[in-house]
């Protein structure tokens, strides 16, 4: 199975002074079983895993909680505010997540529309400002708009997470130019979150120069999530290396790779 890229080929990246080696972050939702989730996360090589905050179902077994299956010593837990439709609600969920006692990080989502799950950027900015002032490390899920990304950075986001395409859509990277521009202009890390469908999407996304990718459905909804997790790990590494290597220029005409001299009969 794949290993992480050797330190000579890539560097670690840092969010809020915490160093990460794996540029692939994964979610924990929608797997057929907890066992499958655990195996897929292992195969992905991810260090950061996202979780959601929900009511305990008091009539069911306590095995529901994701921490009965994932070791919080081994993975860095990143709680999200998925399902929140305004700033106040997202702030409430972030505070609840922090009270769980693992860390002060939050993957902030303020959703603006149920059909597309696109972010409400006004609410997102407001919640980012409030939570950053309270000491949260805010990773803000946003659209691929440069100006919003710049405003989020100003508001105190520790990382900005533009989408490749809508959450759970698997449509891949819709606007490479927008993602590249955001990465070029921001000082904080850029982690593409949502929309990646398969390994080539992950590779193409990393080739834009972003710091990492967060995905969930692409693994959980694959026919074989464990294999797809391994493929995504390779895709992310390949894209990262290709970005660092610097691609050759595109040409509209062919250029032979073999010598044009020394042919027979010259």
């Amino acid at each position, binding site marked *: 199975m794949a290993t992480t890229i050797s330190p000579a080929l890539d560097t670690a990246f840092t969010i809020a002074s915490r160093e990460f080696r794996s540029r692939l972050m994964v*979610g*924990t*939702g*929608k*797997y057929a079983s907890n066992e499958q*989730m655990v195996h897929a996360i292992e195969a992905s090589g991810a260090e950061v895993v*996202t*979780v*959601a*905050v*929900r*009511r*305990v179902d*008091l009539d069911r077994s*306590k095995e*529901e*909680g*994701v*921490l*009965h299956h994932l070791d919080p010593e081994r993975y860095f*837990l990143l*709680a*999200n505010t*998925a399902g929140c439709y305004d700033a106040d609600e997202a702030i409430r969920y972030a*505070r*609840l*997540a922090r*009270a*769980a006692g693992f860390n002060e990080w939050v993957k902030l989502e303020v959703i603006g529309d149920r059909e597309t799950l696109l972010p409400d950027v006004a609410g997102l900015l407001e919640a980012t400002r409030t939570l950053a002032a309270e000491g949260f490390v805010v990773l803000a899920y946003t659209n691929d708009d440069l100006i919003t990304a710049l405003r989020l950075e100003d508001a105190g986001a520790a990382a900005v997470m533009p989408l490749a395409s809508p*959450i*759970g859509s698997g449509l891949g990277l819709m606007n490479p130019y927008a993602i590249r521009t955001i990465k070029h202009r921001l000082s904080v890390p850029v982690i593409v979150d*949502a929309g990646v469908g398969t390994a080539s999407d992950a590779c193409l996304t990393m080739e834009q120069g972003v710091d990492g990718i*967060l*995905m*969930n*459905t692409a693994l959980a909804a694959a026919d074989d999530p464990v294999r797809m997790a391994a493929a995504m790990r390779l895709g992310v590494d390949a894209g990262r290396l290709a970005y660092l290597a610097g691609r050759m220029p595109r040409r509209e005409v062919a250029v032979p790779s073999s010598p044009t001299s020394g042919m027979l009969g010259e």
Partner: protein
Amino acid sequence: MTQTAAQRAAITVTVNGDERSIPAGRTLGDLLREHDLDPRMVVVERNREILRDRERFDRLTLEDGDALEIVHFVGGG
């Protein structure tokens, strides 16, 4: 305690959106044990205030009209 006295001593609390009648004098710790919940695995909000000190759960007596939210981490993206 007679049945009537017990009924008189019942209070109404809302737990995760469900209203229920419980005997007066129950603590939050009692409620969590009743549902086989490990206090370290949940976060509790009482009347919109997060209860950060888990050591206090056994001393926190529930009061009539309390609204509790008991949450934990589940799978998500």
